[in-house]
Each structure stands twice: as structure tokens, then as C-alpha cells.
């Protein structure tokens, strides 16, 4: 069944149609939440919240944008709220070991190269976490999720020109954050 038909049925309260939509988007939502939080359980909780919120508000979804754009927008707002709460009551991060545990490549590759890549990745994600939330969001949507500029523009409600300039600033700040000595990383952590 086409997505539009599923949305129409879901708006009428058809839970099976909604479940089909959930199935289509849940991995994308989970990956987005994980990219922003680096915590598997937290990302799972956020994904659940996203689909509960979407169910509650699907009757107000007018179909002016694609369902995917709409659900991404809900996810970005939910993650943002979560990060703000997190900023007040920080969790102890359980990051990255889940990602490593899920991969069987380590057995094949050279261990030293793997260790170096993992260390680079961990450093990069620490730097990413130290960025203001607006930069972290745009980098996640573009460079981790691989969304197109026009999709990002619709999800964040920004003009394409603003997406372009914000993305440039975000990348520049990330590069500078990686270049910082490790003891200074995360000093400019802020939500904006």
C-alpha cells in the first residue's frame, strides 16, 4: 500500500496502517536519535516517544509535506527536548561499545587499524557532542543521515541558504573541535 493511503487510514484510527508506517521509519528514527545521543537505550526511548507523539497528532497532519519530513520534524524536536533535559540532568554515557559489539568486521580487519579508526571515531563524536545543538542537528541530518538539503530545509524550517551556511559553520566548528587538545574538548558545550 502506498504511504499516502497508509497515512489516510492511520488518520482514521487504523492501527495496522500506522504500524506499517512505524515499521518503515523506525530504524531511521532510531539512527537519528542514536547519532544525537550516542546511547542505545536512550535512542530507543526517544524513538518510542516519537511514534507515540506522531500517533496523537496524526489527525492534524495535513499532508502538505511528506510523512517522512513530518516524522523527522517530530523526532528532531523530541531529541532537542531530550537534550535540554539531559543538559540539566546528564546521564552517564554508555556510548559506542554497542556499535562495536554489533560489528563482526573486527575479526577480519587488522586490529591496529581498527583501533585507530575507533579512536578517531570516538574523538569525532566527542567533538560533535561538544557543539551547540543546532550544529549537531544539522551535521547529523546531513553527514550521518545523508538527507538532502531540501529535506533538511523542510524538517528544520530553514531556507536552503541558511541550511548551506549553517552546515558550513557546523563543519568548521567540528573540525576546530577535533583539532583541540583532548583536555579542552567539550568546553564550549552549549545548547542554542
Amino acid at each position, binding site marked *: 500500500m502506498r504511504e499516502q493511503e497508509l497515512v489516510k487510514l*492511520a*488518520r*482514521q*484510527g487504523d*492501527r495496522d496502517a*500506522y*504500524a506499517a508506517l*512505524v*515499521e518503515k521509519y*523506525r*530504524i531511521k528514527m*532510531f*539512527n537519528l536519535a*542514536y*547519532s544525537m545521543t550516542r546511547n*542505545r*537505550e536512550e*535512542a*530507543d526511548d526517544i*524513538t*518510542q516517544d516519537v*511514534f*507515540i507523539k506522531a*500517533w*496523537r*497528532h*496524526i*489527525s*492534524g497532519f*495535513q499532508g502538505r509535506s511528506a510523512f517522512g519530513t513530518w516524522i523527522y520534524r517530530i523526532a528532531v524536536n523530541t531529541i532537542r527536548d531530550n537534550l535540554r533535559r539531559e543538559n540539566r540532568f546528564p546521564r552517564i554515557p554508555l556510548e559506542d561499545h*554497542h*556499535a562495536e*559489539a*554489533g*560489528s563482526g568486521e573486527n575479526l577480519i580487519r587488522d586490529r591496529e587499524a581498527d583501533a585507530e*579508526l575507533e579512536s*578517531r*571515531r570516538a574523538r*569525532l*563524536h566527542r567533538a*560533535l557532542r561538544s557543539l551547540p545543538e543546532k550544529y549537531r542537528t544539522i*551535521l547529523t541530518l*546531513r*553527514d*550521518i543521515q*545523508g538527507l538532502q*538539503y531540501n529535506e533538511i530545509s523542510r524538517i528544520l524550517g530553514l531556507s536552503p541558504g541558511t541550511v*548551506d551556511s549553517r*552546515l*558550513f559553520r557546523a*563543519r*568548521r566548528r*567540528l*573540525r576546530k573541535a*577535533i583539532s583541540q587538545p583532548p583536555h579542552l574538548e567539550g568546553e564550549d558545550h552549549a545548547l542554542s
Partner: protein
Amino acid sequence: MRCRKTEKLLSKAVDGRLSPNESQALETHIESCPKCRLLAEEYQGMLNTLRSAPFPEAPPYFLQRLIPRLDRSPSPAWLPIGKQLGLRAAIPLALLIFAVLASAALFFLPEQPDQLSQSAALLRNEDLLEETLSLAAGGSDNPNIQMIFTSLDLNSQRRFP
């Protein structure tokens, strides 16, 4: 091209958003500038690492855990009509209903006689004093008006004995 522009163009280049001219200018500059070549490598490495980051497997039984929570939420079909239409549609609808009711009230309510102020009466060339005197002299069928003029007579007798 100046070094200052390199990073901006690199950011566009990694997304394939450079014009052929910009692309040519960037390439030529990077070939001749070791500092910008290093920056380009650093940039590309950073984005490759970011883009290739693996994701963990999502916890299992997602739908099975979600469905009971959906059951506890109200079904979208049962939400009030305002929500169904969305707030943007509800506000103009409410204004329209208000306008229709207001115009119906104006149309059907009986017309009230004009209560003229003194200045409005003068503008209409009406003499209120003359009208009052004619009422006092000729009397009126209305018992209320008769009582008013009777009390005025009594008061004037008391004030000017």
C-alpha cells in the same frame, strides 16, 4: 583564489554543490597551497569518518512495546473536530461562524428608536424644548409622562413659593 575561501568551497564540494568554475578554482588552489591541501585532507577525512560511523542494532520488539502504549493513547479518529481540521482551519472557521451570527443578530433584532443627544438634535434641526413644552401644555396619554410633569409642578412650587 584566497585561502580564506577554501573551507567554504570544500564544504560545498563534499556535497557536490560546486559550479564547474568554483571546482576548477579550488582544485588549482589546493595544488599550489600546501596548507589548504592539508585542510582538504583533514576535511575529507573528518566527513568520511562521520559518514561511515556504524549504528548499533535497535533493541528488539519495538512494535510489541509500542502497541500497548498506542492503546493507551486516544485514537486520532476520536479527536475533536478542531484538531481534526487543525488549528489553522479552526480559527478562520470560528471567525466565520462569529461573523454570520453577528450579522444575523443585526438583521433580526427590532430597530430601536433613535435617542438623540442635544447636539445631534440641533444638527437635525429639531427643537427638544418645544417638544417638551408641547407635551407639558397638551398633556399626554402616557401615565408615566403625566407623573413626571406633575412632580415637576410640585417641585417648582416648593422652590419658588
